[in-house]
């Protein structure tokens, strides 16, 4: 059965179109793969019966000739997307047992295009983390291992379950969400493609909120072409999300011309951070060489406020989280701890029992920076610096069409590493956070092995709503890199 799960999403689509394969066969192979991958802990909830029913409905549609973009293709969905009738937890104890009575717009779009739900993937609790170790349901294991070692590695976070599921070949593609790098960093750690679209491109409606001015859903796939296909299906204008942007969704796959001649690629000099491992630097140089060889033109650019991006993010994101997560109070859904019988104690006891350590830490930081007397010094200051960070990007995009950077400052690290130092963990997002603050689209693709045989990612950042150029250049890099290694753990 393994050949059915080793394909790219677009290859499976083509086989289904040619009727050389049924959605039912394809889905059965993936259900078996999801079961075989249980040691990775990539799924919080498996939905095999629903998957089979959706696959059979897809085959019936195809017999009638009425198919969508993703008809019959089995996907994994991050457990941050509300799925009607299927438990949605955000990997938090406080939402355990929550079964939404509505469907997120992005997943509704996927089902409208005929996709099949395999299950809901594990993640960092409320998407807060860069390791997937903050999940209430336990960490996800990266299907990759260092050469000659069986030490367990993290898949990155927060979309670590989605990254692991796609890498281990138990789902053809998955959804993730990215607030400061939560699609791109796990994609790099697991050797898959992760695309964070422009803020406003994919609806946030029905996605459990973390930091509303930053959160953005996006695809995690095995190829750039698959990312293009997924994004087209996920994206839409949504009147239910007031920050959704009303513009047509292009055929992103058609943008993959394989041509970058004359494209100006910026290399931001401030991304050469101190202490960066030589293998990351080498990969970055390699990426520049590949693009130049394909006819693109390199230019050094300056984004002078880069070093302030992380501290800005760690004020803004917790501030918004402290407001968004106020709704988990033990009254409307999820966990309730009765406390001493008063309402205040019910709130305080429920939130104490329901949230994990990292979530509590961020809610306290967020509450502090928004509190009277500190609002201006922290929160408003961070919003001002955010304006300057966004302006750096706007100015550099007057000179170049795209920016090329590494995705993360290292390959996947071991489970348990960096856990005792929140600041060391936050540094994982140093290359992904700036584009998030500016709302720009970014893609990470696997570009080469580390010295220890682990995947390393390169990131391209584009202009707002120019995912087409981003995908086009990513396709050229992907071809040049030819990264086709497989993880040591495969589901089938």
């Amino acid at each position, binding site marked *: 059965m393994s050949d059915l799960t080793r394909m790219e999403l677009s290859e499976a689509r083509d086989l289904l179109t040619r009727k050389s394969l049924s959605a039912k066969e394809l889905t059965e192979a993936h259900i078996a793969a999801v079961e075989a991958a249980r040691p990775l802990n990539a799924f919080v909830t498996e939905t095999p019966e629903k998957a089979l029913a959706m696959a059979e409905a897809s085959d019936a549609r195809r017999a009638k000739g009425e198919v969508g973009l993703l008809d019959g293709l089995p996907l994994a969905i991050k457990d941050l997307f509300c799925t009607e009738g299927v438990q949605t937890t955000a990997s938090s104890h406080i939402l355990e047992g929550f079964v939404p009575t509505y469907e997120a717009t992005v997943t509704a779009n996927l089902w409208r295009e005929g996709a099949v739900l395999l299950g809901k993937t594990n993640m960092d609790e409320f998407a807060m983390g860069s390791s997937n170790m903050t999940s209430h349901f336990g960490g996800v294991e990266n299907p990759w291992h260092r050469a000659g070692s069986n030490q367990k590695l993290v898949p990155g976070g927060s979309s670590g379950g989605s990254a692991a599921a796609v890498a281990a070949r138990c789902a053809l593609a998955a959804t993730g969400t990215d607030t400061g790098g939560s699609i791109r960093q796990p994609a790099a750690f697991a050797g898959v493609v992760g695309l964070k679209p422009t803020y406003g491109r994919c609806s946030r409606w029905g996605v459990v909120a973390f930091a509303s001015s930053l959160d953005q859903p996006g695809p995690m796939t095995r190829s750039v072409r698959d990312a293009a296909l997924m994004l087209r299906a996920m994206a839409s204008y949504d009147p239910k999300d007031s920050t959704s942007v009303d513009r047509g969704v292009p055929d992103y796959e058609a943008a993959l011309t394989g041509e970058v001649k004359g494209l100006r690629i910026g290399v931001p000099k401030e991304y050469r951070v101190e202490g960066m491992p030589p293998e990351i630097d080498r990969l970055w140089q390699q990426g520049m060489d590949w693009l130049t060889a394909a006819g693109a033109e390199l230019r050094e650019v300056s984004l002078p406020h880069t070093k302030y991006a992380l501290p800005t993010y760690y004020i803004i994101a917790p501030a918004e989280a402290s407001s968004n997560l106020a709704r988990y109070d033990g009254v409307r859904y999820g966990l309730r701890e009765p406390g001493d019988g008063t309402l205040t104690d019910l709130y305080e006891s429920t939130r104490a029992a329901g949230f994990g350590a990292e979530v509590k830490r961020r809610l*306290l930081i967020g509450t502090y920076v928004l509190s009277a007397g500190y609002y201006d010094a922290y929160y408003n200051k961070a919003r001002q610096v955010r304006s300057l960070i966004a302006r750096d990007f706007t100015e550099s995009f007057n000179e170049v069409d795209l920016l090329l950077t590494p995705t993360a400052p290292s390959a996947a690290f071991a489970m348990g590493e960096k856990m005792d130092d929140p600041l060391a963990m936050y540094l994982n997002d140093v290359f992904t956070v700036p584009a998030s603050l500016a709302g720009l689209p970014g893609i990470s693709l696997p570009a080469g092995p580390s010295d220890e045989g682990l995947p390393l990612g390169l990131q391209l950042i584009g202009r707002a709503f120019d995912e087409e150029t981003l995908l086009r250049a990513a396709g050229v890099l992907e071809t040049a890199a030819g990264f086709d290694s497989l993880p040591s753990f495969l589901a089938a």
Partner: protein
Amino acid sequence: MAIDKATVHGIAKLARIKIDEAEAESLVGELSNILDWVEQLGQVDTEGVRPMTSVVEMRLPLRADAMTDGGKPDDVLRNAPEAAHGFFVVPKVVE
């Protein structure tokens, strides 16, 4: 800025999260470290810079002030830990 244990208890109260003494103890160090680190933003000259409210340059859309959805009390209450007669149930708040 270093914060003390009383401040940690104060923030936890505002955030409606119960913390015990041991947690407060370790949070003093963790939160102080994070706040020390974010204070580097003080080095940035932001004189006259407008704080960002939205990364997307767009006017917020308006719609007619009319009901678009509703009539779903059962859906709204379905996940409630405790509900009765079409309402959420909470401990008594008025004597």
